[in-house]
């Protein structure tokens, strides 16, 4: 076993190099666009509810922490794939305002996992020129995590690639409420009158303001649950929802491509007239 170590290391190094070269090729000339997908119909903003990590672990008799770890690996791969396919914004639901009720051990593990992701995995994202932002009520997160977040956001601020939003201690109702409070303060201070409040006002005060594509075109939820679980609510008014049976650690690049194909087949009318 010991003598095979270096050989295995060599192979895995070679494999990584090969993967990097392949990725680079499809990035550079863009000709290798997956079959069945049209570049011009790609969703600009994809959102994912990464559900099923705990069930995946339980099914295998593993502690839930390993489920979250497996989910993290998948999230990295999916983020890179979305970036390669030309998705402009990817939002992932990592931790809800409602998740604090989970066992203390699990919450503690998750906070440590997020710190680790920011410290190590974010370098991969930054290498892919991604701009990273954390949305949600950061004030309740551990101070160490908060400062890592600030550093990560600062260091990726001028990147020009895909925008990656990680929703941490976030919920749709929290977002609408914090926007409402900001707007109400402006009314109280005379900056805005109540009559001036319109949907655009809200767009400007939600956590997804100041970006080109704040509203997801496609929302994927894994693990078969048919609900939004208080993820983005205002922003998903016209979003195509896709519910996938697989648990998140089982969701692979093929599933992502299939989801994108399904999205491209849909007809979006926005309440208006359809041309039959």
């Amino acid at each position: 076993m010991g003598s095979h170590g270096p050989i295995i290391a060599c192979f895995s190094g070679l494999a990584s190099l090969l993967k990097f070269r392949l990725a680079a090729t499809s990035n550079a000339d863009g000709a290798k666009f997956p079959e069945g997908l049209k570049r011009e119909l790609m969703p600009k903003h994809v959102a994912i509810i990464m559900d099923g990590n705990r069930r995946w672990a339980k099914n295998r008799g593993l502690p839930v922490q390993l489920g979250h770890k497996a989910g993290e690996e998948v999230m990295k791969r999916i983020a890179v794939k979305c970036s390669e396919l030309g998705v402009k914004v990817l939002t992932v639901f990592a931790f809800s305002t409602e998740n604090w009720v989970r066992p203390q051990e699990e919450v503690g593990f998750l906070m440590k996992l997020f710190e680790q992701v920011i410290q190590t995995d974010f370098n991969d994202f930054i290498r892919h020129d991604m701009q990273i932002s954390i949305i949600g009520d950061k004030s309740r997160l551990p101070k160490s995590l908060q400062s890592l977040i600030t550093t990560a956001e600062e260091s990726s601020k001028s990147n020009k690639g895909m925008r990656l939003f990680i929703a941490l201690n976030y919920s749709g109702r929290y977002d609408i409420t914090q926007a409402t409070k900001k707007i109400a303060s402006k009314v109280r201070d005379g900056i805005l009158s109540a009559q001036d409040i319109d949907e655009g006002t809200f767009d400007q005060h939600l956590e997804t303001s100041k970006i080109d594509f704040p509203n997801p075109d496609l929302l994927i939820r894994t693990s078969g649950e048919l609900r939004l679980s208080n993820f983005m609510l205002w922003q998903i008014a016209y979003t195509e929802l896709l519910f996938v049976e697989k648990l998140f650690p089982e969701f692979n690049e093929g599933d992502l491509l299939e989801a994108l194909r399904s999205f491209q087949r849909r007809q979006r009318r926005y309440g208006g007239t359809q041309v039959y």
Partner: protein
Amino acid sequence: MNTLANTLFGNLISFIRRILFCILSVGPIPNHVAFILDGNRRFAKKLNLPEGMGHRVGFQSLISVLRYCFDLGVKYVSVYAFSIDNFKRKPEEVQSIMDLMVEKFNEMVEEESIVYQYSVRVYIIGNLSLLSDNVRLAAEKVMKATSSNNKSNLIICLAYTSTDEIVHATQESCDDKWAKIQSSIDGEMMEGKREGCFVIKVADIERRMYMGVAPDPDILVRTSGETRLSNFLLWQTSNCMLYSPRALWPEIGFLHIAWAFLEFQRTYPYLEKKRKEL
């Protein structure tokens, strides 16, 4: 022979329906079911019906669905009858839908209607100022006539979008707080207390939402296979079960309702647990 076959088939369907009914009645029944009535136009096109007939047929489906829901014990049924976005459609289509609404609102106040059979309180909610006078008057008439009904509730969302509802609720909350501040200035209230008065809480906004008349829905059904909310009940469906059968709205039947309720009953224990945790 044909008539006999038809009768037997009809009896079999009734029998299956009664069995399903009994099975469903054993488990928890959703308190509030919301529907996005999608597919009327596609149905009319499919059957080569004249334009506008799709919505008429759709209305008959609504009556059947209301019966199923109220018979099973559902207390609130909401329907997305007309979105603010739908004003973008051809004027003739918008007009024919409005005419159909007025006709049906007037029928509702008649004694033989489902509204009286099930003692349904009807609410028509949305940005009603966007409607023409005759529609608004017919809506107000049916709301007034049914205001003392108390067995079940039908909420018809007309000229509604969720984002408009949230904006409107925020405006009203601000106006209300501003009025409080003004009166506190007159009454010479202390600075600190005035500050506290103006804090807008979630409960303030929710109270002023058009949908404040009902609890959050337990199930949201959108027919015709489209899986999106189209700006319907965004705030209220944060934890609601979503169901999108392929059937067009006029094709919806008891089996679809039964399936939705069974799925609801399957996930109910998990939801209850979550509700208690929060």
